[in-house]
């Protein structure tokens, strides 16, 4: 791979097969590795009634990095993810993605531009199979156009086959291959978290927002998910914003960390820097009220 030589390590994941299987279209536009800002949140504000859930939150995310978003419960992390991904509109402030002002765009328009998010609680398509969950995820499918379905099925047959092969490989990578024909609703909690990530791989995002991808999964699986995320950055060139409470994981995985409290950015830096930051430590102990 031309663009993986960034000096990072992906623990126990950089085997030849995973490199080959995860190397895909995204790295095509990112060769050589582009640098600079992929996403900029500019003084975002969002109130819910009297609650200022997000109150002047600003940060930047560099391409090809994993950025952590930490902060006590109720700090406004999920709301920030919702604002960036278009699920809700900001009261004021701007979101700049890939050079364009995308403030207030509907989620599907942002997704079309390569910004994909996952949810804090697993939200698989329950009564569809695991494989179908993946097949539904690629963006801009030719077979989703009514005209093609009835008059030009040739326009998507090959694409469909390609997505199927890719889905099976991704399921294999995530250890879900044996479950491919099970209903997604019947997976275990941890498997559902893996499915969320596997779906995201199928969408070939530029920026992936993960809201607590490790919530409620066992330590061994935490390591596995961490490895998957790092591998996706290294081999697919995906940029991440990860909301996470497990600070050890954040330290291991994130190039850069943003600490939030009471709706605004408190500090940014590496995890080691933030550990030494008195304001961040206090916020974690007191919820930011101090």
């Amino acid at each position: 791979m031309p663009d993986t030589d960034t000096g990072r390590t992906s623990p126990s994941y950089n085997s030849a097969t995973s490199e080959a299987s995860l190397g895909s279209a995204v790295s095509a536009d990112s060769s050589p590795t582009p640098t600079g800002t992929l996403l900029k949140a500019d003084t975002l504000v969002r109130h819910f009634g009297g609650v200022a859930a997000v109150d002047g939150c600003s940060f930047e995310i560099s391409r090809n990095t994993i950025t952590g978003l930490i902060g006590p419960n109720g700090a406004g992390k999920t709301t920030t993810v919702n604002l960036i991904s278009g699920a809700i509109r900001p009261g004021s402030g701007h979101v700049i993605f890939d050079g364009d002002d995308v403030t207030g765009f509907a989620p599907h328009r942002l997704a079309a531009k390569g910004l994909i998010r996952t949810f804090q609680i697993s939200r698989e398509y329950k009564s569809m199979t695991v494989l179908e969950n993946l097949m539904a995820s690629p963006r801009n499918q030719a077979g989703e156009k009514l005209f093609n379905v009835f008059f030009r099925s040739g326009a998507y047959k090959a694409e469909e086959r390609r997505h199927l092969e890719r889905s099976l490989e991704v399921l294999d990578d995530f250890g879900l291959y044996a479950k491919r024909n099970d209903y997604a609703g019947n997976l275990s909690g941890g498997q559902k978290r893996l499915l969320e990530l596997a779906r995201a791989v199928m969408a070939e995002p530029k920026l992936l927002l993960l809201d607590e991808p490790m919530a409620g999964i066992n330590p061994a699986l935490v390591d596995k998910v961490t490895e998957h995320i790092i591998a996706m950055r290294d081999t697919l060139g995906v940029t991440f914003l990860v909301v996470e409470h497990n600070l050890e994981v954040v330290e291991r995985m994130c190039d850069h960390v943003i600490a939030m409290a009471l709706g605004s950015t408190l500090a940014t830096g590496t995890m080691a820097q933030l550990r030494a930051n008195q304001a961040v430590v206090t916020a974690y102990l007191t919820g930011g009220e101090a």
Partner: protein
Amino acid sequence: MGVFWGYVATLAVYFCIYNIFAFGLNIQFGYAGILDFTVITFMAIGGYFAGVAVLGPAQRGTEIYYIFGWSLPWPVALVIGAVAAGLLGFVIGLIALRRLRSDYLAIVTLASGSIVYGIINNDNKIFDGGAGLVGVSQPFGSHISTNPNTYSEFFLIICFVLMVGCWLFANRLYSSPLGRAMRAIREDVDVAEAYGKNSFKIRMTAMVIGCMMVGIGGALTIAYVTALSPAGWTTGETFVIWAALIVGGRGNNWGAVVGSFLVAVLFNEATRFLPNIPGHPNMISDIRNMAIGGLVILTLWFREQGVIPERKAKFMEIPLRATRAKPGLLAVSASGSDNA
């Protein structure tokens, strides 16, 4: 041909028409999760528009008024009926599908249906108000023997052909990536949006296609019965179509067929041929509605997915090793050059 076969043909005609209704509702609800609580309105619009397209101009001095009166051949009228139902579906969809939450959608469809009903029932200039359209000539009626039993058998062929057409269309849609996107939206609209599905556009597609199918069913109904009035499409009729889909199995067109047979033919139509009990003129239809209601409750209680539940999607079995063995596969979609 005897009376018996005429009777069977009549039931078969209703069976085909209800199948078409159920396919249409299945596309809306079973595929895309749209709670269309006014299905029967689209049947009526399809029927009325096909009717006024077939009828000649309304005669002065007869106290019968309706729009159009174009004396068009029946196949053209069928298309007009379907398009009119689709257009109404589009307009209602513009209001109902903007909001993502499905409970809004249910209320909006119900309210829109009531408005349409009120207008058509009260304004006697559109489709002759409460009296409705009468004397709509049957398709190719003049070419076929006037014996009603023979005509039923002929009409059954038309219905069957159209039903098969709708069946093929619906199944093709279901197994396409578009159908898959519809189901994804049904399962979780926020997630589907987050994955780039334009939920408004895709649900609108399902809404309009479903309405057009139901409209085709309506055009067949008025062609067969030769009349249509507001008394024939009350909210209760929407319930019958819903009952058919819920009992049969939503998300599965075979379920729609089984449900149409059980609910719409066995329970609904067949009981109409039972003798009336003197002194209780509404007894039969009340018993019928109670029976259908009971059947729906039993289904939801004991077999929530319906008699024939939605099938698991089947994909071609590609051995994993085969795709893994192809080193070029991902390299091609990737950098394409120095990656392989």
